[in-house]
């Protein structure tokens, strides 16, 4: 495969550059010599003496061409090819790592294209009435520290568990709202899975809830905002549903607004915690 690739590049080089570039360089050097000789004739030398002097000044044409070739466009391709070779050699040497890197990249992209909700004043009131029926699951490492749950684990748990009405995932984060015509704001928010609110028996007062479709990788990024954000930042805009806002540098579409006083997720307030160790 490598000789083929080399031949391909060699062919490209010849077709696109070498001949035309060489011809042009020859012509350019001839012109250079001619002009130098013209100058010397004007200064009083005979034509043949002028040409001779110009040739001596120019020196070896082949040497000049060799110097120019060293700079050539093709050296860029060669550099690129060396980079490609180096990269593939490195990847071959650590194939396991490559797989992990590629997979986690894919997962990161998948997770990134899910969705999130923006709420303010997180952690004060529990968002559910029947908080004794809510359990929080997480993973612990061997030292007993909370390490969160990977998205594939969450999907497995959701599909295999029979003890719960449903499982939802969330990941808390700060959200910078930087719409072009408004001052920037920093609010609390979370990435959540699509069924989170319906499991909590909560529904947006405006617009729609997240749909399972929104969870798919590649889905359009959508957001449900808190009433406080809707009223405080967007002036209670009646056309808020469908409006595109900028959250953490990404353009996302508002699909819903939650009721006044709704907080998510809850940090205090009596939801039982259970843990699953992996």
């Amino acid at each position: 495969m490598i000789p083929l690739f080399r031949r391909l590049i060699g062919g490209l080089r010849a077709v696109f550059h070498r001949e035309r570039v060489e011809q042009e360089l020859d012509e350019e050097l001839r012109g250079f010599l001619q002009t130098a000789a013209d100058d010397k004739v004007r200064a009083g030398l005979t034509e043949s003496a002028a040409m001779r002097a110009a040739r001596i000044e120019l020196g070896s044409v082949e040497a000049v061409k060799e110097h120019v070739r060293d700079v050539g466009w093709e050296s860029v391709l060669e550099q690129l090819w060396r980079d490609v070779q180096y990269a593939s050699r490195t990847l071959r040497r650590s194939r396991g790592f490559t797989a992990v890197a590629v997979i986690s990249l894919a997962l990161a992209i998948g997770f990134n294209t899910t969705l999130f909700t923006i709420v303010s004043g997180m952690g004060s009131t529990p968002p559910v009435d029947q908080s004794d029926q809510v359990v929080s699951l997480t993973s612990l490492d061997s030292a007993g520290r909370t390490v969160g749950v990977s998205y594939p684990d969450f999907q497995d748990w959701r599909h295999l568990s029979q003890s719960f009405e449903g499982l939802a995932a969330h990941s808390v984060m700060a959200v910078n709202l930087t719409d072009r015509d408004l001052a920037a704001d920093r609010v609390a928010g979370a990435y959540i899975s699509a069924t989170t609110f319906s499991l909590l028996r909560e529904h947006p007062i405006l617009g729609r809830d997240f749909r399972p479709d929104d969870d798919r990788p590649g889905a359009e990024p959508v957001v449900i905002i808190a009433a406080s954000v809707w009223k405080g930042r967007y002036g209670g805009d009646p056309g808020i549903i469908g409006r595109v806002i900028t959250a953490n540098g990404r353009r996302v579409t508002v699909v819903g607004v939650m009721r006044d006083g709704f907080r998510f997720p809850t940090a205090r307030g009596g939801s039982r915690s259970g843990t699953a160790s992996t």
Partner: protein
Amino acid sequence: MRKTTDLVQGTLDMLILKTLALEPMHGYGIGLRLEQISQGVFRVNAGSLFPAFRRLERDGLIKGEWRATENHRRAKYYALTAQGRATLRRETRQWEVQTAAIARILKMSTSES
């Protein structure tokens, strides 16, 4: 052959760009202009000029175009691109800062020489 001063490494490209900032010129004209303006201190031979043209053209700082010369010969005229103009401005600034610093250092040690 006349003895001439070697150019400081890396300055030829900058000088070519500066020469072209006034008007597009062909290779011979550029070399001649450099020699005239430096009052003969720098005589740049073709073996240095042409690789520099190639380098600058490859990097998109100058652009070549075939045209007729005043003597009715065909020559490749080089012109500065927008990118070349920006590079020249940047390099000139850097050069001024560096030469000023070098001059200060050399002035400091004149008493010893």
